[in-house]
């Protein structure tokens, strides 16, 4: 088996007295699609947001491709990196948000080329060509000049995925990508994600879509109370959970 891409080593985090992550250990292999499921408040979104240092961790470490996220290690000390270096790490770890967070003052095309041009320094003409290709891939080639507010939720989320892909990421973090969508629009977003998974993209997906977790993900991690209760292939965790808490949760969502 190849080296894991993401390694969580005893990751802990608290908000004041509230421990949201308790010594999480987890590995994600390149090309793997891992879904994080669990009740709200279980810490799954927080765990995801720690991977690109949108949240600081209080203990343990997260590495992506062997690189410590957010810190520079000297002996046993970890110094927080200056903003520019953190930004550089984030540039290759894309994130898709529950509320899309598209840039409202930019057209679809401008949204997709913004970071490649501004962060990676790709020439604009080149970025536009690339962006058109990606938007075609997510089925929005006819919406280049449209502003986000004129699009449906499903279309907006597909633009957000295109924006993430434009950075040629090695890893994409999905934070409940379909939770803000009307039920009939969930499918079009999941289809795009399914295609990405089949294309070999490494993905971590916080989701409530059990069917997606079952059909697309290589592994499912069930979290509760800041811990990973169980983790394994969907055929085990979703079909034959060993823990009572997992069973209780699954009986509620299905």
């Amino acid at each position: 088996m190849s080296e894991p891409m993401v390694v969580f080593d005893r990751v802990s985090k608290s908000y004041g007295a509230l421990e949201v992550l308790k010594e999480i250990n987890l590995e994600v292999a390149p090309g793997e699609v891992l879904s994080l499921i669990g009740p709200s408040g279980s810490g799954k979104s927080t765990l995801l947001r720690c991977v690109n240092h949108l949240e600081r961790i209080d203990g343990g470490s997260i590495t992506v491709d062997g690189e410590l996220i957010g810190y520079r290690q000297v002996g046993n000390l970890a110094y927080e990196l200056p903003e520019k270096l953190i930004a550089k790490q984030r540039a290759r770890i894309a994130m898709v948000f529950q509320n899309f967070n598209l840039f409202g003052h930019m057209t679809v095309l401008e949204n997709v080329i913004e970071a490649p041009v501004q962060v990676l320094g790709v020439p604009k003409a080149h970025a536009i060509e690339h962006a058109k290709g990606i938007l075609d891939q997510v089925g929005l080639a006819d919406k280049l000049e449209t502003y986000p507010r004129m699009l449906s939720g499903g279309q907006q989320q597909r633009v957000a995925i295109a924006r993430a892909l434009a950075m040629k990421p090695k890893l994409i973090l999905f934070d409940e990508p379909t939770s803000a969508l009307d039920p009939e629009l969930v499918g079009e977003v999941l289809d795009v994600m399914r295609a990405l998974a089949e294309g070999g993209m490494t993905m971590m997906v916080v989701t409530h879509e059990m069917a997606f977790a079952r059909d697309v993900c290589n592994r499912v991690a069930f979290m509760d109370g800041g811990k990973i209760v169980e983790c394994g292939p969907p055929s085990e965790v979703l079909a034959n959970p060993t823990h009572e808490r997992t069973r209780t949760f699954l009986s509620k969502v299905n």
Partner: protein
Amino acid sequence: MDAPSSTLAQANDTDAGQKPMLTYVPIRGYGRKAAAAALLIILGSFLFSIAGNDNFGWPVVGQYLFDDRIMSGLLLTSWLTVVTMVIGVVLGTILAIMAMSSNGVISVVANSYLWFFRGTPVLVQLIFWYNLAALFPDLSIGIPFTSLWYSVDTNTVITPVMAAILGLGLNEGAYMSEIIRSGLMSVDSGQRQAAKSLGMTNGKSLWRIVIPQAMPIIIPPTGNQTIGMLKTSSLVSVIALSDLLYSAQTIYSRNFQTIPLLIVACIWYLSATSILTAIQSRIERHYGRSLLQADAPVRWRLFRSS
């Protein structure tokens, strides 16, 4: 017989069992039309009574409208407004960002600045800057604990013009800071997170993502401030600068044509306000283009060609 009832009659003729098609007749609004007509009559007679009144001295207005002194006063008022507003916007942006800083010292310094400059009359601030030499006869700049110091007589630096720019600009910065802060806070925090997750630094996300989306909130009150400054700048007459209003006053103090010269000043103030209003609505349309309906044509763009 008029149209609606004939439609009804036809419908009744064709099929007794089917409900007739309705013809809609909009409300007539006679009241509003009468009110509009009354307003026009009142306004018209008001304007007529002013235009036909010899006491207003319209020939004198015409005589002084393009007077050299009035023109140079207008020029001073115009550029002073522009310069102080530019200072106000730049300073206000810096102060707004400082006020929102997580570092307590930085935000307290910004808030103290606001407290002081909003809490004292701008007239006092103007006089203070003008008389700075009485408090600090020399201004020095240099590196502490070294002999690298440069000193200059205060009166050569703080000319009346400089005192006016400082007094009005620093005061305006305090007011603009609150306007800009409210604009920045109106942008959803998800926008910054998205920018961060794409590898943008704080500065870049502020400049490229947050500020452009704060503009629709910032522009209308900034337009207000600019128009206000056009007239507030007339306070500089206390430090011997001849702005538009002061130029008019100087003239009427000699020829006693008070009302005509004040009308001259007002005509120019109104003209400048009209121009500023037009500029404001253009900028608003530029930043509001993402809020337009899907089928609305983009009529023009101010800053970008593509």
